[in-house]
């Protein structure tokens, strides 16, 4: 059974093996309800969300529930571990670069400076005893968009397990997956990681969305997330800029095309793709090694680079190598 629903600005899909169709429908309904609940709490766009309330009140100190607090705490922990490569306060920079409107623009130095002043995970203080969240700058804006979809997948997976589901694949807009068990008589749910560079942006309109396969992962009781710039970039002054900002410099990341991260849960894999993307193939492995990430696959944004595809602890056993991996183009 496969069901899809719109949530968190993307499409969530559930693939489920079930014998009882009515029961599967009910479980799917309950799962999508849970995703909607998470969206209602974390949506940056809804004035009624908990994160919107936190943003309104955090300059004076605000108390939140254990669930929301734990997620913000995890985000902050990943910011600390990555020395700011992951940062839930990056919104003003995204805005300055025009990324929320789906287009890019080169900000003026003044705009950039103003946005940088309103950015920085270190401006957020958490107090576990009271579940308090406080920002030391009223312009600060917490946005869990870089971790929330993964979190929603984890909540959905927990609900499915609770309901006795033993084989299911959860998909949040193809950028994050979580697999429960495996389809009958298989090693895991096959996830194809495309080679974004070999498939230039024109491919999407012609229905060749995924391009060539770089590798296939058989995912089982684990999560996989991908961040890439193939569909999101802009060109200014003859240069191509990615839609992923390096929160530390305030500028779009240069040189990476795509990263895929494997982790035990989707909250982490979702956030860690941003860490991996921002830090790049050279610097990221050291940081990823101190997180829950179990493997990562980097694709650099240069067709002629010799080490264009870089693997870190990538599971050779479960992948089916293609020409793209072994011989390159």
């Amino acid at each position, binding site marked *: 059974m496969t069901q899809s629903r719109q949530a968190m600005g993307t499409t969530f899909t559930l693939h489920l093996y079930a014998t009882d169709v009515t*029961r599967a429908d*009910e*479980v799917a*309904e*309950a799962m999508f309800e849970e995703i909607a*609940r998470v969206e209602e*709490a974390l949506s940056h766009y*809804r*004035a*009624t*969300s*908990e994160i919107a*309330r936190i943003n*309104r009140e955090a300059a*004076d*100190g*605000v*108390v*939140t*529930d*254990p*669930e*929301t607090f734990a997620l913000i705490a995890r985000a902050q922990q990943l910011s600390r571990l990555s020395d700011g490569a992951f940062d839930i306060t990056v919104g003003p920079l995204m805005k300055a670069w025009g990324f929320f409107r789906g287009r890019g623009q080169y900000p003026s130095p003044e705009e950039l400076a103003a946005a940088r002043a309103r950015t920085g995970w270190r401006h957020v*203080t958490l*107090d576990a*005893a*009271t*579940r*308090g*969240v*406080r920002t030391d700058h009223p312009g600060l804006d917490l946005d869990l968009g870089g971790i929330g979809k993964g979190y929603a997948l984890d909540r959905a997976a927990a609900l499915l397990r609770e*309901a*006795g589901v033993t084989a299911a694949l959860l998909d949040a807009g193809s950028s994050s997956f979580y697999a429960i068990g495996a389809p009958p008589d298989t090693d895991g749910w096959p996830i194809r990681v495309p080679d974004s560079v070999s498939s230039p942006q024109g491919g999407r309109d012609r229905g060749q969305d995924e391009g060539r396969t770089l590798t296939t992962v058989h995912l089982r009781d684990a999560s996989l997330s991908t961040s890439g710039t193939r569909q999101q970039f802009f060109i200014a002054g003859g240069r191509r800029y990615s839609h992923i900002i390096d929160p530390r410099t305030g500028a779009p990341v240069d040189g990476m095309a795509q990263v895929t991260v494997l982790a035990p849960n989707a909250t982490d894999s979702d956030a860690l793709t941003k860490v991996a993307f921002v830090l790049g193939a050279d610097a990221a492995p050291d940081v990823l090694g101190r997180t829950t990430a179990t493997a990562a696959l980097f694709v650099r944004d240069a067709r002629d680079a010799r080490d264009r595809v870089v693997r870190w602890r990538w599971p050779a056993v479960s992948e089916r190598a293609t020409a793209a991996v072994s011989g390159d183009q």
Partner: protein
Amino acid sequence: MNRRDFLQRVSTGAAALTVSPAMLLGGGLGKAGAPSDQVRIGMIGPGSRGRGLLRRYLRIPNVQIVAFADVYEPSIKAARALTGVETPAYTDYRRLLDRPDIDAVHIATPLSLHAEHVTAALASGRHVYGEKSLGHTVEHCIQIRDAVRQARGQFQIGLQYHYAPWMHETIRRIRAGEIGDVTHIHAYWHRNGNWRRPVPDPKTDALEHLINWRLYKAWSGGLFAELGSHQIDFANWIFDAAPSSVIASGGIDYYKDGRETYDNVEGIFRYPGGRTLVFSSIMTNQNMGAQTRIYGTKGTIVSTMADATLFYEPKAYNTIESVSSTKEIVERGVVTGATYKSELPYRGQGTAITSPEGEAGNADHQACVAFVETVRTGARPIANIDVAYASGLSVALANKALYDGTRAEFKDYLGGHVPATAGR
């Protein structure tokens, strides 16, 4: 409590155990304070709705969730997952009420249990937040109303939209005459789904009734109670009156799966002054979603669970665009025939109703914040027993009309006067 008071209290040692370094350094996170400022809440029925409210309480400074009562162990487990601690729990709600360390009780049990749980909680001297609808039957509603009248504690009903800023602004605009005389309200709560919750194995009838209590008459008031009560309450608020009569229709016409409450209902409520609410709830199409359309002689307000939009009535509704010039008419004459009026639906853009505060706060959150304030101050809630009784009675009588196939009259239950229903 201000910072000076707080520090004074700290210096006497009264609050020493709860002080975190952040509070001392930064003047407190939120409105953090001493134990005596804590509001201690016990929750009866932390099911899906109860846990939704539980999350809200956990976002309010100095609120402690002290205990749960529920007959269904997985609900306790899920509730404890939210508090993050092994919150004491009981299968018998009376043990929860026996605890000396509870200031207020939140009741989120199935409808037919409200009367027993609310009256017992009130009798124990606590402030009570009771989920809607007020009571399963007219008798239950009266029983709770009378108990509230004699109680020491305050009673707040879970009609949380009384705390929604855009609702208050909608009411203000209506009272100011912006849409003229409001003669009709059409309220829709349309879904596309069977309203079932998954029942874990091994499935038994008892478990089915426990999980899907909304589908069984012994527990539930069906769509009028679980969905309609908000919009019926909203109509009462707008009309500033309870209905005078109701007729209803409906049936189990699509989901013939053993349920007892109807899978589609329509209710027509007549109000004093010749005003009408038409409520419709179906489960086979969600094009309308949940919305309340408020029709006035000068305009329309469409209110949802998150916002509201105002449409002014077109000034010359029955004129059509002129197709010929006066000169042509003089030359060729005018054709006579049957009256023609353009009665196409209005398709223009409305104006969003934003609250003066400029923020659409979450209604559930505001309601819980207000209840905690009521516990602290003893002040009468906005969503008080009068609001609760008018809405609860409307629901109970609508169901009476629905199941008996009769027109239900309100006058015998309103004590010769129409209760005040308005908020602040």
